[in-house]
């Protein structure tokens, strides 16, 4: 049972970091008060269900439930039951301009690897690749594009739906994460993800980064650099590609009509991979079919 207690608590600290709380509070206070009030009402309509589950999880571990005034996103990060609809204020997204991406080479991949410390063992079939470059080619015209493929942070993530323990979960701001403490390594999420962006840790790991815990026998994927977001920085791949070629990736809040990403999405034709599946990903591509 101690292990469970660890899991429940460590999730809040390692996946979301205490700074996530600060960020959330900031996010909420940034918004106009009226909408905040509406949000609070909404929060309270949903909170009982949420808190109940957080409470029961901790109770099972022999701990008292957290106080009721726990911040909504915090509690969701701690044990939000997948599938419960929360109306998030923030929806993080990335818009990738593929015309520009063609010129940045491996910048995104290298930045991600350095940031999170996932390394290969010279075994491509089992080495992790949180982000990878894929070339797609139209067999009729011969036109091709290179696109970075990584967790698309789906609004309706199949990896979350299928996870038996709820280890694969979606934070209220749209980031899809794996709780390393409750993942049992069944790999059903890997079967369910349409993009092959989940990775099973096939060997013992060394040299982990404290902000990006990994563990043999569990599943991992791009976490949208949640530790950087919580420190008000953009993801490492975004920073690196924009350094190589400005404007390659736009990161921001898709729900905020004044954000750069929301405005760009409103102006250009952007596509989601396999949009027919209706997953409503947060990662968008510009120039995929041109």
């Amino acid at each position, binding site marked *: 049972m101690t292990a469970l207690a660890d899991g429940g608590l460590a999730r809040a600290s390692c996946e979301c970091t205490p700074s996530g709380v600060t960020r959330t509070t900031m996010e909420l206070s940034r918004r106009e008060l009226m909408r905040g009030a509406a949000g609070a009402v909404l929060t309270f309509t949903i909170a009982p269900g949420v808190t109940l589950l957080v409470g029961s999880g901790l109770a099972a571990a022999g701990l008292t439930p957290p106080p009721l005034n726990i911040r909504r996103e915090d509690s969701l990060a701690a044990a939000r039951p997948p599938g419960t609809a929360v109306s998030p204020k923030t929806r993080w997204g990335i818009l990738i301009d593929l015309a520009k991406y063609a010129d940045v080479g491996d910048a995104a991949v290298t930045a991600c690897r350095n940031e999170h410390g996932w390394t290969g063992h010279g075994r491509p079939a089992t080495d992790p690749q949180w982000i990878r470059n894929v070339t797609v080619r139209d067999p009729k015209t011969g036109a091709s594009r290179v696109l970075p493929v990584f967790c698309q942070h789906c609004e309706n993530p199949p990896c979350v739906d299928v996870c038996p323990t709820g280890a694969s979960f979606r934070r209220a701001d749209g980031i899809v994460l794996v709780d390393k403490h409750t993942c*049992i390594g069944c*790999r059903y999420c890997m*079967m369910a993800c349409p993009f092959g962006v989940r990775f099973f840790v096939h060997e013992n790991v060394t040299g982990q980064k404290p902000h990006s815990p990994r563990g043999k026998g569990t599943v991992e994927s791009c976490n949208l650099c949640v530790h950087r977001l919580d420190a008000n920085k953009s993801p490492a791949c975004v920073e690196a590609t924009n350094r190589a070629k400005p404007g390659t990736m736009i990161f921001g809040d898709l729900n905020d009509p004044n954000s750069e990403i929301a405005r760009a999405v409103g102006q250009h034709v952007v596509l989601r991979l396999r949009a027919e599946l209706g997953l409503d990903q947060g990662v968008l591509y510009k120039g995929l079919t041109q």
Partner: protein
Amino acid sequence: MSAMTGRIAYREHGGWGVGYLALVGLLGALVVAGLGGAYVMETEGHWVSGMSHRIVWGTPHVAAVFLIVAASGALNVASLSSVFGRALYQPLARLSGVLAISLLAGGLAVLVLDLGRPDRLIVAMTFYNFKSIFAWNIFLYTGFFAVAIVYLWMMMENRMNRFSKPAGVFAFLWRLVLTTGTGSIFGFLVARQAYDTAVMAPMFVAMSLAFGHAIFLLVVLAAAAGTGRPLGDEIVRRLKNLLGIFLAATLYFVAVQHLTNLYIAERRGIERFLLADGGVHTWLFWVGHVALGCLVPIALIFSPATAGSRRAAALAAALAVLGGIAQIYVIVIGGQAYPMVLVPGMEVTGSVLDSGIAAYAPSVYEIALGLGGVGIALLMVTFAVKVLPILPETLADAPPEKA
């Protein structure tokens, strides 16, 4: 000690003959090998297996799915006896229940030991995401144990016999839901063209009836021979004919599945792979599953030349088991080997994760773990026959106890 239920006398297997000990030794060795395989994969990590990011479920899952599905079908004879009132099958109902429990135990052991973190079984039992069909299956599997054990108890305890019919009906319904749930593990995978279809559920039901029944027939033949009990031709004839029908039903659903997919243009790629140019998968499908696993056994069962032969019945059942494993292999591995669509209509290159057919060669550890599950299941049956009054004293055609 022998126990009487109505007119049927049951008796434990008394002897400690060389044959019995050799069987226990062989099965025990399989179990040890399976545990060893699991230990290596857990300590080294799964890279020592043939599994990869593309083939995320490998041979252990083939074994686990096969055993779990067969567990449900192994209960056929008990259901026929208590639910459908077929008195002929009553003497074998206990064995049917024991085999079902044992196969399920073997399958679940493999499933758990292949987890990345089998030590977290307690997490799987305490944290549930009710939207996950996998989580539902955890309930269905553990529930099936309970249901089957209670049912077995009602069959074996004279005072409880009158409840064996309702318990049998409940167990029958439970196992239908269980196989539907197992099929849906695949059927609900919208991302993968090989799976995403509702026909997976009834197909798994039909497969379970066939594979479980085939194993049951083999166990009955082996148990009767091994314990020196008479076995009448009539019961063998009925059992094998039933197997023929279940195999035909399996073939029907397999045909529906592939014909439907062939009609859907975007699925022709995966169908061409499985049915025409998928190498080992194509062979396993046509030769392993369709020909040797279904058509040949059906011919052996119903053709006048072999219909009366007990050897032919045993061969038919053995082929059905091997063909069943081949089919599950094609479903589990073949379904993953074909690349997923990333951008419809576009060719994808650049990474082993996206392009081409995924390579897979089962490692010795995985095979050992799979066989370990078989060992667990059969060892349980072997022990049960020894310590519990499960086998009737005789299965001769005319019941000697008839008043």
